[in-house]
Every structure is written in structure tokens, then in C-alpha cells.
């Protein structure tokens, strides 16, 4: 009896999981199949589901109209640069909070997180003025800095949580062995925290890659990443759904593939410490 209950429960849970997963994935699926439709099919009512004439025409049009690879390269530079900078600042910061806390550490952590509670729009004008004054508007450095600062609180929080899991005695042993602070971090802490650092890096790359508010507001052409590439297809002269879908598919593809291959690492990192 108990076994049957477990079985039906498992079936129900599996069904619910599949339905939920499908619901979450559906927009992406819709986007991908729309990108292979003609513009006419894309508008068709009732919507056509796989029973249309497949074409790759949209992709060649999109590539002809705007240079995909230039935008993609910018996305790589911006998310990579922001993540690298984030690690350089985040690892030492998280180290000090985890292993040399003061009585204000908790408050500092909360305060950092609180900066994420304000909508970005709230500081758009000051940042805009500041960037014009610094000459950072539409530059790689300017975008890297804003993405780096935007994600830094999350990075430090994540790294801090992972570092907390590492026994302090091991770092003390390194100190007794004559390691300086920096060597202690490089040779002992970082290698031990690799899963945590890896998932922090992945999440940060994904967040920076998908960040749209600042990348759209602070770039025009030179530093514009894939978010700007997508946005350029939602133009006031009328929407071309199929082409917009093709552009979107191209824009999310790299990060989708990266996420797919690193999902094990990502899940392990995000649940690290939750289960001993």
C-alpha cells in the first residue's frame, strides 16, 4: 500500500515537473521556431506550431543587416571583463568577511545587498551625467565598470557563503607554514573554493551577458553588446517577429550553450553548503 502511494506520488511529481519545465522552456522554444518561419507565418492566427515552411532566411538577413559577431564580441568583452574585475575585488573582500570578520561585517553584507534593492532607473541620470563627464559613454571600460559594480554585491555574497564552509584551521595551518595573506588565498583558499568560484563566475557571466538596462542606456555602437543587437530589431517602423526571433536566438545561444554544459557545476555551486 505504502509502495503504491509512493509510486503514484512519483508519477504525479514527475508529471508536474515536466509540465513546469515545459512551461518555463516554452517561450524559448517558441522564439526558436519563430526564427525559422517566414514573416507571414510568424503573424499567422491561429499560431502555427511546427507545421510551417521552415526557412533560414531570417538568419542571413539579420547577419547582413547587422554584424552579429561584433555585438557578440562586445558581449564577451563586457561580461568577461566585469567578471574578472569582480573576482579580483570579490575574492579578497569575501575572504576578509569570512575569516577576519569584525562586528560590522554582517551590516556591511546587508548594506551591500541593499544596493540591489534600488531600481537601476533611480540612478540613471547621475550615472549618465557622470559617464559623459568621464568620457565613458559607449566605451568598454565604462560598461565593464558598471556591470562589475552592479554584480559585485551578489558575487561577494556568493563567495562569502562558500568561503564560510571552508574550515578556518586550514588557512591557519597555511599561515603557520609561512604563507602570506596573498599566498594563502592563491594556494589554499582559491583551489579549495573552486566549485564555489566557478558557479559565481558562471552566474556573473550570465547576469552580465543578459543585463539590458545599462547596456542599452549607456551604449550606441562601439561597445554595444547583444542586448543592443536584439533591441535594434524592435524598431518603431513595425515589428518583424521572425527576424527579431532570429536575432534573439543568436543572442541567447552562446549563454544557453554555456549554461547547458556547465549546469552540473552551476547546480552544485548554487546548492553548495545547503546539503552537507
Amino acid at each position, binding site marked *: 500500500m505504502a509502495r503504491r502511494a509512493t509510486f503514484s506520488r512519483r508519477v504525479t511529481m514527475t508529471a508536474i515537473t515536466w509540465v513546469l519545465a515545459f512551461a518555463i522552456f516554452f517561450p524559448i522554444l517558441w522564439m526558436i521556431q519563430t526564427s525559422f518561419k517566414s514573416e507571414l507565418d510568424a503573424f499567422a492566427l491561429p499560431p502555427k506550431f511546427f507545421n510551417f515552411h521552415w526557412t533560414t532566411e531570417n538568419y542571413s538577413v539579420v547577419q547582413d543587416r547587422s554584424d552579429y559577431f561584433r555585438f557578440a564580441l562586445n558581449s564577451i568583452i563586457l561580461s568577461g571583463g566585469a567578471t574578472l574585475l569582480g573576482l579580483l575585488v570579490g575574492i579578497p573582500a569575501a575572504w576578509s568577511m569570512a575569516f577576519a570578520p569584525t562586528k560590522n561585517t554582517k551590516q556591511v553584507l546587508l548594506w551591500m545587498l541593499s544596493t540591489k534593492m534600488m531600481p537601476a532607473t533611480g540612478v540613471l541620470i547621475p550615472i549618465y551625467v557622470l559617464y559623459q563627464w568621464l568620457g565613458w559613454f559607449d566605451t568598454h571600460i565604462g560598461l565593464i565598470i558598471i556591470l562589475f559594480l552592479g554584480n559585485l554585491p551578489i558575487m561577494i555574497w556568493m563567495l562569502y557563503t562558500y568561503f564560510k564552509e571552508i574550515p578556518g*584551521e586550514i588557512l591557519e595551518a597555511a599561515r603557520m*607554514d*609561512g604563507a602570506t595573506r596573498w599566498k594563502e588565498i592563491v594556494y589554499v583558499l582559491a583551489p579549495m573554493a573552486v566549485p564555489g568560484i566557478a558557479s559565481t563566475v558562471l552566474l556573473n557571466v550570465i547576469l552580465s551577458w543578459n543585463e539590458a538596462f545599462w547596456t542599452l542606456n549607456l551604449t550606441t555602437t562601439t561597445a554595444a553588446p547583444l542586448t543592443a543587437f536584439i533591441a535594434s530589431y524592435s524598431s518603431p517602423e513595425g515589428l518583424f517577429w521572425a527576424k527579431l526571433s532570429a536575432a534573439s536566438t543568436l543572442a541567447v545561444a552562446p549563454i544557453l550553450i554555456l549554461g547547458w554544459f556547465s549546469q552540473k557545476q552551476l547546480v552544485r555551486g548554487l546548492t553548495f553548503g545547503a546539503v552537507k
Partner: protein
Amino acid sequence: MGKIVLKDIRKTFGDVVVIPGVNLTIEDGQFVVFVGPSGCGKSTLLRLIAGLEDQTGGHIAIDDIDVTDAPPAKRGLSMVFQSYALYPHMSVRSNIAFGLKMAGMPKDEIAKKVDHAAKMLNLGDYIDRRPGQLSGGQRQRVAIGRAIVREPKAFLFDEPLSNLDAALRVQMRQEITKLHQDLKTTMIYVTHDQVEALTMADKIVVLNRGNIEQVGSPLELYESPRNLFVAKFIGSPTMNTFSGPEAQRRGAATIGIRPEHMIVSRTDGDWKGTVSIAEHLGSDTFLYLDVPGVGPITVRADGEAGFHAGDTVYVSPVSARMHRFDESGMAFK
């Protein structure tokens, strides 16, 4: 060389005074054991010597050089931690070599020293394994290997055996004692286990609430404890103590007698009692007695004496081995 001098060492955590002021001299080559109940400040004292903790006041000198403000690395000490604290991502070889690598020693010299230490501690067979693949005893040996390759002025041990099972603990205890005989380097060893203290130490420092209660050789502490705390802490089973008429009759506030310093008889003696529990250890039998008018008493009897719960026995303390204490718990000289 490895002479360590603590002068007025004080440590507070916020308002909590952990060590109110300790003065202690550890001579070069001594095996010193800090012993005391948990929370007595013995580990804190060790960490202060290591430099892992900052003192609130006082001075520490190693070989007559003030190291009060020196970082751990500059003190020339090695430490073995309770949790072993091995680097889990490195092989046994790299674990042992780490300190030498940090010191910038040439590679071939490191290899030579690591091999020597590995041989000394029988680590040869698993030198390329990770700590995760080793047993508790093997890990402990790696931790000791990591400590000895650096040829420190002194070794600091922080309850190194408390994670091992009983049999292994005895074996490692002997290995550490042997190591001390071979290296003749100063060792400071923290434990709450008085058996470890008595068997290993040249000098025992008994700590209680951050204060040093007594410093002396194991035998000194056993034979002439300075106060009631030391009397009850050193020796197993614990010394019997009585206050009341029995003590007053002998001109003391409290008297103490160890279980092994009483004569047990079935026929006659000073005190008559009933056995409530008899623990047969083979070589010895420990009897827990109820003695009307005196209180509960523990005595040691012969292993073959054949006493059982419910038996009536007579015990007589050997007066020469009796300890007398005044009202403040201090021993009469």
C-alpha cells in the same frame, strides 16, 4: 633552540576575560603539556604563542627575541591541529612540502627533506595520495610530517589525538614521545586528557579559568598537588576528598586520598562501607563504596580480589599519602 617565555599574557574577547595574566617559562627541549577542563583557556594560550590570536596584553619571547607582534610565520613554530587541517587539494607530498615552498627552498632540497620526513613517519606508501584517501591516523602523521620538515624552534600540538580511536591514540602518543626523544625540540602539547599529560610531559601546566594552577613534573603534580583543583584533576579515578569531622580530626578543612592509597580488607579497617558498583578492569578492580558518616569513596583493589556489588568492605587510608587542604583549598605544606 626553543625557549619560550610568556610575560603577563592577557587575553579578553570583548568583556570575557579568557586569560587574566599568565607568566610561564618553557625551557629549550622541554615537552610541556597544557592540561585543564574544556574552556580553561589552554587552546587560546597555545594560539597566542602561535600568533594565530592577538594578545590583549603582555609579551611573548622566543629565544629571548620579543615576538609579541610578529605574525605566525615569523615565529619559527610549527603547529599540529586537532582537525589535522591538511590541504585537501594537495597530495601528501605537497602538504608536507608546502611550508618549505613558501620559504622559497630549492626544489631538490625540498624533495630530500620531504622524503626524509616521509620515511621517518612511514608515509612512503601513500605519499602521492590526497588526504581524503587516508585514515585518521595516517592524516595525523601527515600533519606531524608537515610540522617537522620545517625544523621549527618548537612544536605546538592542539589536542592532536582527540579525533582518533582509543587504540590508535595510545600508539600515536608513543610515536609523539619517541619523536620528541629523537628531535629534542621543544614541544607544547594541549590536551584535556590527563593520561596524555602524565604519560608524555616533562612538565605539566594545569590551567583553570585561564589561570595556571600548578606547574610541575607529572610526579610532582601527582604526589603534591598545590590545591584541591589540581588534586582532583590529576589522577584517575579522581582523588577522594572529604570535609567535615574526618577532616577536622586531622586538622584540615578538607582531606584527600587517592583510590590507590587505601588498604582494602574484608575483615577490618578504619571505614566500613558497602560496594555499590564494582568495575573489573582485569588488572585492577575499582570499587565505588557508600561509607556512612564519610560519604562515597572510590578505592582500587586487586584485580583478583573478587568483590561484588553489595559486599561489605573495610578501607583504611594510608596516612602518609593523605593530602590536607585549608579553607581556600590550598594544600598544607
